[in-house]
């Protein structure tokens, strides 16, 4: 397999996986959380590169610490979680930049950690992304109905006798794994585009949980492939091209939803009672 074919395969696998996990992230309104995570993994990746160990392993280690921290804070208060995510985001990024400046002669270029370099991904990177995607699919196959219930109605979920934190922790762990496995393709700064944009686009044009979970990976994979092709055709960096392709899909979906009036189809809600009429 040539480097270009391998890049295309990586784009499909990583794009689809990030799109799938991104659907959970966007529906649960954890996008800012995920963004904090992408930046927070940066110092872990730099440290791993400096020590000569696996970059994804370093990023994963950093993200495990962050997931534990943010899950703990999210249990306390939602507002606090936003603040914590903001601090983790900038703090992580600053720590990464500082580490990079302090350690001379890093074997990896700073740019590839920040915006990825899909043309140099290894088969191990692709295998990791495939594993993450399969685990995410398995998680949704097994506890998808509980994830949907707790996302839609957290209070009702608790009242039905469920505990919320295992679901929260599961989705956060999947998010962290997805971020780490996306780094080779799009880097710490652009990973959020591949996670949030395809899912947000799917959400705009599809009106069911299952539909979003199916459409987002397709859009993510398409973004990856388009980005890689554009990178070769126009001789531009692949990471930004992938992120821009995902953004373009989002804008396209936004246009379609505006035209169709979805998801708020203001169709005929039957007015049965005076109170319904008042609300309508």
């Amino acid at each position, binding site marked *: 397999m040539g480097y270009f074919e391998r890049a295309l395969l990586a784009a499909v696998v990583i794009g689809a996986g990030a799109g799938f996990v991104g659907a959970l992230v966007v*529906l649960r*309104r954890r996008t800012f959380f995920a963004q904090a995570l992408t930046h927070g993994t940066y110092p872990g990746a730099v440290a791993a590169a400096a020590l000569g160990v696996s970059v994804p392993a370093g990023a994963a280690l950093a993200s495990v610490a962050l997931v534990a921290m943010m899950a703990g804070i999210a249990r306390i208060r939602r507002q606090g979680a936003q603040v914590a995510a903001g601090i983790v985001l900038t703090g992580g990024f600053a720590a990464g930049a500082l580490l990079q400046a302090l350690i001379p002669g890093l074997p990896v270029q700073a740019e590839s950690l920040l915006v990825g370099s899909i043309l140099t991904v290894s088969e191990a990177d692709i295998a990791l992304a495939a594993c993450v995607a399969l685990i995410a699919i398995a998680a949704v196959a*097994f*506890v998808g*109905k*509980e994830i*949907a*219930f707790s*996302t*839609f*109605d*957290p*209070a*009702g979920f*608790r*009242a*039905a*006798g*469920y505990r919320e934190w295992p679901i929260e922790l599961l989705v956060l762990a999947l998010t962290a794994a997805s971020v780490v496995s996306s780094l080779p393709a799009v880097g710490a700064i652009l990973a959020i585009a591949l996670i949030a944009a395809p899912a947000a686009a799917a*959400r705009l044009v*599809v*009106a*069911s*949980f299952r*539909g*979003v979970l199916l459409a987002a990976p397709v859009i993510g994979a398409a973004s990856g492939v388009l980005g890689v092709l554009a990178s070769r055709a126009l001789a531009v960096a692949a990471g930004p091209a992938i992120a821009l392709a995902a953004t373009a899909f989002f804008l396209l979906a936004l246009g379609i939803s505006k035209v169709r009036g979805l*998801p*708020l*189809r203001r*169709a005929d*809600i*039957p*007015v*049965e*009672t*005076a*109170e*319904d009429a*008042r*609300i*309508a």
Partner: protein
Amino acid sequence: MTDSPVLRLVDTAFTHPGGAGVEGLRLDIAPGEAVALIGPNGAGKSTLLKGILGLVPRTAGTIEIGGVPGDAQAHARHGIVSFLPQSADLDPDFPISLEQVVMQGRYRGLGLFRWPGRADRAAVRHVLESVGLESLGARPFGELSGGQRQRGLLARALASEPRLLLLDEPFNGLDQPNREALVDTIRSLKRDGVAVLVSTHDLELARLVCDSVVLVNRTQVSCGPVDEVLTLGNIQECFEGVEVEIDEHTLVVPGHEGH
């Protein structure tokens, strides 16, 4: 044995970690019995219901559900207790249909790792009919009117086929037709042997649909058959200086003489 209470509270107290709570609860609810939970705002009605659910810690006394000690956290997996909250804090943008919301009521019975089957879909259709929403099952939940959402959430609470149904201020914000529909639903649940505990400000509705009344104001003031409990003296004690709705009039209950 069949007439053993669905819910039994003995000298029970439920207290929020912050300190507010309700105490001195002594209450039996038999199958097919509807009990009105009455008291002023902030009297601990919601706390009591959430305590039964296991969402507010029990700090004294005992609780038995279906003859088994323990709150609903221990029982909910059997679908014994269902709850209709006063105001649902749910995500109206989440892509989900009314049918799928009602199906959530079946999840506890299904358990983890299993998806709904034919019997569950039939049960969902049945409860949607019983609340009069059978024609709207496929509609996105966020597009329903307030009254329809309330009925949809009631259908979800019924979908688990509970033996005890807890309703928190279900009549608030409902117009006359929706109130009557809810009264009918409660009556038919009673006929099916479901025990109902309903918190309300509305003494008229309590008389209309309930067999017994519990008056609470931080502690249990009185408990018994509707006619014996809803006396002027009891209401004065419970609602001192608070607005009460009775016989379509709102009146402010004066305090006891000498206060």
